[in-house]
C-alpha cells in the first residue's frame, strides 16, 4: 500500500459527534438523576449539574488542545508522566492526604476540588505502553523484553491502586494490559501463563475479604436479599424494567428518589434507561459502539506504530470501562464502583477521557 503522508485540518466526526452527544446526554441525565439528591444533601438541586458542566467545559477545552498537540510530545514526557502519576497514587496512602470515602482512599483533595489519581494512572499507563511497545518492536515476542518490564510497571500501579483499596480498577487495568500486550505481539502462551498465575491471587483476594465475597454472591443471586446486599442491583433492574421500550420520560424516574444508590455516578445508566427506555439505552450503546470502532479504525490507520498503539490503548481503556460499567448495572458482572465514561458525574474521569479523545482526534488527523 502506498503511504499517504497527509495532515487533516478537520475533525474525525465519527468520533467527535458521538462524544458531543454522549456528554450532552450525560449532562441531562446527571441533572435528572441528581437533582433530588443534591437538593437533599446540598440544598441546591443544580449542584451536580454545575460541577458536571464545569468539567465538561474544562474537558472539551483540553480535548481541543490535545487535538492540536502532536502526540509525540507525550512520548518524550512518558517517564515524568509515569513518575508523577505513580507518586500521586503513593500519596493516597499517606494518612491525611488521601480523602476517604466509604473506607477507601481514592481522592486527593485540594481547595474544594478532588482528584482521582487512578484516572491519571490509566492515562499514563496507556502512553507508556504505547511508547514502550513501539520501541521494542520485534522484541515483543521475547519474555524478558516483551512481557516482563510491562508487567512489572503495570503491576506496581495495580498494586497501589489495589491498596486504596480498589480491586475493581486494578482488575480493569490488568485486563487492559493483557489486551494491549496481545495486540503488541506477546505470545499467547506467555499471556495465558500470566492469567493462570494471577488467577489464584485474584481468587484469594476475593475470597479473603468479606464484602467482595458478598458482592460475588449478590451477583449470582441478587434477589436472595433484596433489602440488604442485593438492594442496589435490584433497584437497578427495577429502573431498567420500569423504563420499558419508550421510558417514563425525562425527569420522571422514580428509582432516583433515593431508591437507587449512586444514581448520578456509577448507576446513571439505569436512570437513563428508566427515563428514556430501551430506545435511549440502545442509542447510548450505539453511540459508544461508533466511538470505539472509530477509535480502533484510527489505530489501524495510524501512521506509526506508537500512534497506533496509543490510539488503541486509549480507545480500549474507554471501551473496557463502558462494557464493565454496563455489565455491572445490568447484573452481568459483579458489582464494582466504576463510572460510565463521558456520562457519569465525576470530574477526573470526564476530563481524562476527553483528553484521551483529543489525542485520538490528533492521531486521526495525521494519517
Amino acid at each position: 500500500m502506498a503511504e499517504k503522508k497527509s495532515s487533516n485540518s478537520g475533525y474525525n466526526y465519527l468520533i467527535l459527534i458521538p462524544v458531543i452527544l454522549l456528554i450532552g446526554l450525560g449532562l441531562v441525565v446527571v441533572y435528572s438523576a441528581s437533582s433530588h439528591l443534591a437538593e437533599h444533601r446540598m440544598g441546591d438541586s443544580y449542584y451536580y449539574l454545575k460541577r458536571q458542566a464545569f468539567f465538561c467545559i474544562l474537558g472539551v477545552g483540553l480535548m481541543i488542545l490535545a487535538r492540536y498537540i502532536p502526540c509525540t510530545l507525550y512520548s518524550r514526557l512518558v517517564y515524568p508522566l509515569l513518575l508523577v502519576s505513580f507518586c500521586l497514587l503513593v500519596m493516597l496512602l499517606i494518612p491525611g492526604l488521601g480523602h476517604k470515602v466509604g473506607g477507601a482512599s481514592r481522592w486527593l483533595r485540594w481547595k474544594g476540588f478532588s482528584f482521582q489519581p487512578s484516572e491519571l494512572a490509566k492515562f499514563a499507563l496507556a502512553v507508556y505502553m504505547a511508547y514502550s511497545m513501539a520501541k521494542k518492536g520485534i522484541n515483543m515476542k521475547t519474555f524478558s523484553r516483551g512481557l516482563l518490564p510491562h508487567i512489572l510497571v503495570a503491576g506496581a500501579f495495580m498494586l497501589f491502586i489495589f491498596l486504596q483499596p480498589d480491586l475493581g480498577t486494578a482488575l480493569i487495568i490488568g485486563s487492559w494490559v493483557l489486551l494491549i500486550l496481545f495486540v503488541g505481539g506477546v505470545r499467547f502462551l506467555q499471556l495465558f501463563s500470566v492469567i493462570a498465575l494471577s488467577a489464584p491471587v485474584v481468587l484469594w483476594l476475593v475470597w479473603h475479604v468479606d464484602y467482595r465475597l458478598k458482592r460475588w454472591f449478590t451477583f449470582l443471586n441478587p434477589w436472595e436479599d433484596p433489602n440488604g446486599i442485593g438492594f442496589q442491583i435490584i433497584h437497578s433492574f427495577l429502573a431498567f424494567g420500569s423504563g420499558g421500550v419508550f421510558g417514563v420520560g425525562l425527569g420522571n424516574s422514580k428509582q432516583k428518589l433515593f431508591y437507587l444508590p449512586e444514581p448520578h455516578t456509577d448507576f446513571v445508566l439505569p436512570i437513563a434507561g428508566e427515563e428514556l427506555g430501551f430506545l435511549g439505552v440502545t442509542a447510548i450503546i450505539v453511540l459508544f459502539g461508533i466511538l470505539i470502532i472509530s477509535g480502533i479504525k484510527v489505530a489501524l490507520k495510524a501512521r506509526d506504530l506508537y500512534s497506533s498503539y496509543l490510539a488503541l490503548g486509549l480507545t480500549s481503556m474507554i471501551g473496557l470501562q463502558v462494557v464493565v460499567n454496563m455489565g455491572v448495572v445490568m447484573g452481568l458482572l459483579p458489582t464494582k464502583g466504576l463510572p460510565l465514561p463521558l456520562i457519569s458525574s465525576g470530574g477526573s474521569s470526564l476530563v481524562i477521557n476527553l483528553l484521551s479523545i483529543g489525542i485520538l482526534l490528533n492521531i486521526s488527523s495525521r494519517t
Partner: protein
Amino acid sequence: MKVKDKKWIRFRIYVVAAFFLLGFATILARAYQLQVLESDHLKAIARAGYIGKTKLPPKRGTIYDREGHELALSVEVGSIYAHPKRIKEKARTARVLSRVLGERREKILRLLKSERSFCWIKRRISPDVAKEVIVLDLAGVGVITETRRYYPGREIAGHLIGFAGIDNQGLEGLEKKYDRHLRGPQYNLIHMRDALGRPFAISRPIPSGHGMRDLILTIDKDIQYKAQQALKSAVKKTKAKGGHCLVVDPMTGEILAMATVPEFNPNIFSEYRPDQWRNRTITDCFEPGSTIKAFLLAARLEESVVSPGTKFDCEQGRFRIGSNVVHDTHKHDVLSVSDIVVRSSNIGAIKIGQRLGYKRFTDYLKKLGFGSKTGIDLLGERKGFIRPVQDARAIDQATIFFGQGMTTTSLQLAMAMAAIANGGKLMRPYVVKSIVDRSTGKVEERHPKVVRRVFSQKTAKETAGILEGVTGQEGTAPRAAIRGFRVAGKTGTSQKVDPKTKRYSRTKYVAAFVGFVPLEQPRLVILVVIDEPKGIAYGGVVAAPVFKQVGSWALNHLRVNPNKGPSSVAHALPPISDKSVALLRGKGVVRSTEAERDPKRRAASHEVDRIAQELREGSLPDFRGLGMREVLKRGRALGLKVHLEGTGLAVKQEPGAGTPLQEVAAVRISFRPPG
C-alpha cells in the same frame, strides 16, 4: 513502520474490535431482556415499592324506621392530617395547631416528629375549625372531609342499631350485622413516595365497589319510643335491675319495637361498659315461669287429651314430687283446665302436664322455637336451654310445666306467643324490612317467613280464647286489659337462680307478661319482662301495666279500631260527598267518555264504571288484585284510613267488599307478591 503493513497486528486489532462488538451486543441483548421482556414484572415490583394506598373511611348508608324516620345517619366533619416528613418548622406548626385545635402542643409535636409519612392530628372536628386550619395553609398539614355516624334518636333502639367506630366500621348491633350493606363505596388515596418515605404525589380519591345502601327497618320509631318510656318508668318504679319489651306483628314476624332497659345511647358508646351494649332481648336467657303454661294448654288441646272443662285437684296448694314440695300462690281445690291457666296454678299445670308427658311437651316447646335460635337477622342471639328427657330428674319433669328448669330469650317467648296469636304458625322474626340501593334505586325486600306450623288453627283459636281470661277479673293480669279490645296473654313470675348458691333465690324474680291484641285479628304481640323487681314481683302486677300502656298506645297509633258492638262507639262516617268524586276526577281515575273510543283505554273505562258502581252503592269496593298505589288512591278517595301489609298485590281485605261505607272507618289490606 506502519500497522497497515503488519498483517498480524491488523489481525489482533480486529480481534479486539470483535471483542468490543461482542460485548456491546451482549449488553444490548441484556437491555432488551430487562426493558422489554421483563419490563412488566419489574415495573410491578417497582410500583409496589413507591406506591402507597390510604383508605378513606367509607361513608355509610342511612338506617330508617318503617315510616322513614332516620335512626342512624352520616354527617360530614373535617379531619386534620399531617405529613411529618414534609414539615420543616415542626415547633411552629405544632404551636399554631395546638392553638386552633385546643390540643396539647407536646402531643402534636410528638406526632409531627414521628417517622411516619402520614398521621392524623385530630379527627372529626367541626367544619368551622377545619376551615380555620385550611386558612392557616401550613406546609405538610391538610384537611380531609370525613363522615361521622350520628344517631338522632339517641337512646331510641340504641341496642338494636348498635354503633359504628371512628373508621365508620360497624361494631355492634345492626351496624355490624349489616356492615357489608351499609358500608358505602370505599375511597382510596393513592400516593407515591420516595425512599425516604416522603410523598410526592397524591391522587384524587378513587371510589371502589358498590353504591350506597340504606336499611329500612320493621321498627316503628314511635312504638319503640313508647315501649322504652313505659318500660323505663316501670323499671324505675319497681327498682328493678332492667327489663325488656318486644312488640311483634304476629302475622309477619316483623319486630315493631325491641327495647332494653337500662338504655344505651350509641352516640357516646364509649362511655358505656361493653355489657351495656348488649341487646338483651336476644342475648339474655331466663326461666320463663308460668308464661309457659300458655303453650302447655295449647299442646294439651292439640293432642286433645282433655277438654278445657276437665277438672283437676289442685291439692290445696301443696303437692309432693319425690322429696320436693310444689306450692301454689293461692290455694285451690278443684280447677278446670282453663282456670288452671287463668289463675296460674302450678300444681294444676303439673297434673295437666303429667298426662302429656315431659317428652311430648318439650317436643312442642322445641317446635315453638325454644332451645334454638329464632334466626332473626341480628348478631349474638342465644339458644336457651331445654333439658333433654334422659337428663331430667322427677322434679325437673314437673317444674317444666310451669316454666322452671328451662331458659328462653325474650324473643323466643314472644315468637312462641305470636304462633298462638296468628293461628298456629311459628314465624321467623326480622328487623330489616328492605335494603335500598341509593344509586340504582333497587330495593331488596325481606318477606315474612313461616318456620313451621305448630298448632292447628282451631287449637290456636281455642287457646287464645282461654288466655283472654288471664286479663279478666278472675285472671292473674286484669291490669293488662285494654279498654275496647280483647286481650289474651299470660303472666309469669319465675325465681332466678342465685349465681352464688346455685339454688333458686327467694328474693330475685323475673316478672313477665306476654300477650296479644286484639284477640279476633291480632295485630300486636307484646312481651314485657322486668328483671329483679323489688317488692311485689308478680308479672301480673309489674309487667302487665307496661303491656297495657304500650298496647293501647300502639293500637291507637296504628289506628286499630276498638271492637264493634254495643259497648263500642259507633263511628259516624261522612257520606260519600261530591268532593270525593271531584278528587277522583282530579287524579284522573275518572275519565271522560271520549277516552272510550280509544281501544287502549277501554279497560280504563271499565274501571271507571266499576268505581262509579261502587260509589253509587256506597259500599266498600273490592280491593283484591290491585297494586298498592291504586289501593291507597282509592281508599283515601273514599275517606278511609288504609293500612297496608306486605308487598305485591292485594289478596285480603278487612272488612270485606260490600260492607256499607257508613260502617267503615279504616280498611286493612294484605298484599302478597304475585305468583
